[in-house]
């Protein structure tokens, strides 16, 4: 069984225990690459043994919805169970669906998660394309002006509830913008988020950026900050979790912790010391002209 399944099931369990939910009304997961280890195992067995002497276990567990399915199996949960696999927007897609289910009244709580694993093969194949930097472990890597990032993996789960007890944060917006590099388009989405929540840019206490240290890729984040949030406090978080398709889920977990505990962990490298308590956090992530914006507020 691949680590992604173990990580996913473990994180889901912690999450449900934390929220005191026994059986959620829905289980929705996002994963960019799915069950890589099991997929690679089965594929390598096919190739190395010329399609002979194969056993089904890793094939069975290679299916993209295995994490959601295993959680349902362990809980005997017959409810809605979806898995989104849309590249770096997999977690965001799952988030959009979760909110829709709550709004429809089809669920009063939803177990939402983002999961992805790193494997030796995935690492070495992507090394050939110059994806990774070596020997960097701290936030300094944001300032080194070079190519590549640090590989990551993880599972982060959330219980979303329409009538929460003791919540971490309120979700004010989850927006996705596709296939554009226009700052005008980004501005339109930001204006929509602000007007529907009666906010202005200055009300955002912290911008959490998906910058990953790759000099060229990070330009989009510095432009975003410069164009729309010049005066706001900002931080990046991928020095803590590495880069992976659903790392935004880690970002949302971090933001939720900051909002509930009312303190910012030392590992988060801020542009300046906050003057007041952080109560509104906007996460921004981007890849290949696609953008996601998630706005959270303290409760």
């Amino acid at each position, binding site marked *: 069984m691949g680590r992604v399944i173990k990580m996913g099931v473990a994180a889901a369990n912690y999450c449900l225990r934390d929220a005191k939910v026994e059986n959620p009304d829905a289980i929705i997961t996002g994963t960019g690459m799915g069950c890589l280890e099991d997929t690679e195992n089965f594929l390598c067995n*096919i190739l190395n043994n010329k*399609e002979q002497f*194969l056993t089904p276990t890793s094939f069975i567990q290679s*299916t993209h919805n295995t994490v959601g399915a295993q959680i349902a199996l362990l809980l005997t949960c017959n409810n809605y169970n979806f898995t989104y*696999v849309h590249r770096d927007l997999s977690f965001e897609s799952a988030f959009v669906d979760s909110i829709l289910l709550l709004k*429809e009244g089809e669920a009063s709580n939803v177990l939402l998660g983002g999961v992805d694993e790193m494997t030796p093969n995935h690492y070495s194949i992507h090394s050939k394309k110059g994806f990774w930097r070596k020997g960097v472990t701290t936030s300094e890597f944001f300032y080194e002006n070079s190519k590549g990032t640090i590989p990551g993996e993880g599972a982060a789960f959330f219980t979303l509830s329409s009538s929460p007890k003791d919540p971490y944060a309120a979700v004010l917006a989850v927006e996705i913008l596709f296939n554009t590099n226009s700052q005008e388009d980004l501005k339109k989405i930001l204006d929509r988020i602000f007007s529907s929540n009666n906010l202005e840019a200055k009300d955002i206490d912290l911008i959490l950026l998906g910058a990953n240290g790759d000099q060229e890729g990070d330009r989009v984040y510095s432009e975003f900050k410069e164009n729309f949030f010049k005066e706001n406090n900002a931080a990046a978080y991928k020095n803590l979790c590495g880069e992976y398709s659903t790392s935004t889920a880690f970002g949302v977990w971090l933001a939720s912790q900051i909002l509930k505990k009312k303190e910012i962990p030392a590992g988060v490298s801020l542009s300046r010391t906050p003057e007041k308590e952080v109560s509104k956090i906007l996460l921004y992530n981007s890849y290949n002209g696609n953008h996601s914006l998630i706005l959270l507020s303290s409760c």
Partner: protein
Amino acid sequence: MSRKVVITGLGVISSIGNNVQENYNSLTSLKPGIGHIQNLDTVHKNIIPVSEVKFSDKDLAHMAEFDMSRPVTRTTLLGIIAAREAYHSAGLDKVAKLRTGFISATSVGGMGKTEMLYQKYLDPADNGDFMKFLETHDCGESTERIAEALGIKDYMTTISTACSSSANSIMLGARMIKAGMLDRVIAGGVDSLTVFTINGFNTLMILDKEHCRPFDDSRQGLNLGEGAGYIVIESEEAAKAGNRPILAEVSGYANTNDAYHQTASSPDGQGAFLAMKKALEVAGLTAEEIDYINVHGTGTPNNDLSEGTAMTRLFGTQVPKFSSTKSYTGHTLGACGGIEAVYSTLSIMNKTIFPNINFKVKMKELDLAPETSLLSGVDIKSVLSNSFGFGGNNSALVFKKI
């Protein structure tokens, strides 16, 4: 949320035809697409029958009008062909701007290319031009390419819940339209045959060496297939305002989990039962009002018994007419919900029930027999379409005549 969601366009490519008309012709002339493997390099070539789209990637690229100097997978090409047919048949290319989404589904995405190149990927010294295909592996890639071919960018996403994937994309599309998040959605799914899936299902020992025989007592398993099926769904207001012909309504949908086993279905068909029951509730229909079920009916001993049990639980002794069109197309995995949504709509439009070919003898456990000959002139008001997948993922859709 009283917005009606209607179907205004259909698109399909499968082993029995490159477009809706060809598929319809094969279905009504009882011609299945099952045969020997032609396009894949595998040791199972002359042993395991499949339901293949009989064109090379090069031919498909020509049909899809795709520039082959760019990295592309068979999955993307099949998807473009079917999604574009749906898009054009609804006349969306001529329509003023409405919020349009593309929701696709696939079970293995770009695996077909990955399995050919994987050993080269792993060789640290080999950094040739083939490396450009690396980005075509994941499931979301085909969705981005197809959406790009159609010029859709208001919303897109990809669902992968094994063999219920594309039924789920239709369900999500319908919900997003009902909620007012989008005006219209091209929804469905695509999968291409791969050595990976053939070996996977082969190790599970659920591939029939003969043509599959859904619901027959002698059934030995499924035949794998490939293809793509998409429907255009929109709010009734948008369709009416644009004067587009309404083919049917998506009136019910549900997704549940069997929570019994990673790959096997429960003996009592609990997940399937709950999905069908809930879909009827959403559609506001009683069991008696379903005129036809396009069953999941893969032909595996386990699925058909479990699904049949669930149908008997829900419909009692009055199980509606039903058939599995997988006896023509094979099991197209992440595409089957989309393809069968197209077929279900064709059933309503043409008052026709496509038969379950190769069926002869009822299974011992259940008193259930599918339709075995083509039925025409049947007034079909509501169709239930089932799609069930690994991980206990069970979906049911209800299509209604307008």
